[in-house]
């Protein structure tokens, strides 16, 4: 690949910085405007995610917060994917071997939440390489 001339690169960076500053100013101007109640997410929820735990803040996520995170990190949930049966198997394993209590009437909604927002995706025998961060390597 032919490299950008240095002055063009500098101009590009300056333009991007200027654009970024403009955006920040717009945002800060917006944030001073009073928000209406209807478009305010619950406290601690940003872009549909519970910021304290990283759980998808939809459905019965508060039940998951209350019942699962006493023992383990939410990361154990958010990095896993399973069907209803799969999540139920994990809950039963935790009850049989790890001292998890009976979830009672909360079990159904908890499993429903997990199987809805953390459902398996078909990836075959070799998933594509994902989230590659490209970088120039000079040899």
């Amino acid at each position, binding site marked *: 690949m032919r490299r950008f001339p240095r002055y063009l690169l500098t101009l590009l960076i300056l333009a991007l910085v200027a654009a970024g500053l403009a955006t920040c100013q717009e945002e800060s101007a917006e944030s001073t405007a009073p928000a209406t109640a209807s478009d305010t997410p619950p406290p601690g929820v940003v872009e549909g995610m519970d910021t304290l735990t990283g759980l998808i803040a939809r459905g019965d996520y508060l039940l998951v917060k209350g019942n699962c995170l006493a023992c383990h990190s939410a990361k154990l949930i958010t990095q896993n994917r399973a069907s209803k049966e799969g999540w139920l198997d994990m809950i039963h394993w935790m009850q049989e071997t790890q001292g998890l209590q009976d979830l009672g009437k909360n079990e159904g909604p908890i499993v429903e939440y997990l199987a809805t927002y953390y459902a398996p995706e078909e990836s075959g025998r070799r998933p594509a390489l994902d989230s590659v961060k*490209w970088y120039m390597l000079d040899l």
Partner: protein
Amino acid sequence: MVFAARLPPGLQLLGWQDQDTLPGKDPGLIILNDRPVNAETPPHLLDQEVTAADRLFVRNNGVVPASIMASEPRDPASWTLTIAGEAVPAAITFTLADLQQQFKHYDYQLTLECGGNGRKEFSPPASGNQWDNGAVGCPRWTGIRLRDVLEAVDYDKSKAVYIGYYGNDTHLSGDPDEVVISRGVPITKALEDESLLAWAINGKPLPPLNGYPLRLVFSGYPASCSGKWLSKIVVRDRVHDGEKMGGASYRVPCEPVTPGADVEDADMCIIEEMPVKSLITSPRTGAVIDAGKLLPISGHAWCGSGKVAQQEYSIDFGSTWTRCRLTQPVNRYAWQHFSAPVAFPKKGYYEVWARATDERGNAQPMVLPAWNPRGYLNNACHRIAVKIV
């Protein structure tokens, strides 16, 4: 956490924030879980021939003993290890100082790999920490041979079948009576020269997260066999039946099953030797290089017993393979290093695939190996993405 359900969303908990999840570790490690702490090393940080202590992955099942994580000075000489079990005439307790004084010291460079390394790729997904490739490392360990200690306590050779371990880590639930993990190895493995009671990595005390002040090292077996914060070893007259020796934990179907199948406990077998595997550690995936240049690649190859006999790479998804230069291991169970200059025929997207073959002719598969409920033993070829521009 009591009253967790009543916690207003977004409220920051006192005593929960701003703790260093990975004290003493390279900030480049990827945290998979913070309670219990689990973190892996991206392949490019494993490029060193001898893995640095701060780059060794962390796979914990419970909570590191509070005394170990506390910052006050500690006295490793006061740490004790008890040897007991059906095949030991009388339980004997050693201090770490006793062990260091009474037995001959050995140094070996030994590969440790989590049985679930590579779990992330399994389909249908397998539950547990979703390890990518980096739950492996090969530092230099210092310690004494477990065999020497077992002989010193006059273990019963006719009775001994298995050894099991207990450590001082605590259960996530906080229940002091719950055992976090208590696994082990067959007595034949325990008696090998390289089966160590280790107190040092690369000449320095073990990192707190990796078992300070004393741990087992059984290279070639899933790393979960190598107990940390070691306080007790039992020499059993049967296969050890401690926590995480049964069910689906560190076990795979004795006979291959359809992906996603339900497998009865009775049809699961304990994992022993880890399979042949290799990792491209340089360059980091995502390299964009100018056309016409040769790309030097390098990495490591290892297997659960014996040696890696051949290392190859492919840039055409396994249609053709080219041999790499491959070094001999510095000792048994140390990983070997490979390198090759790679030429690309034209511009575009490539994947460089690496394949190791052991002395017995077992090669890494290009697709996922046998599916199992917990996603163990994925030794499919490692690959990196490269663009020629």
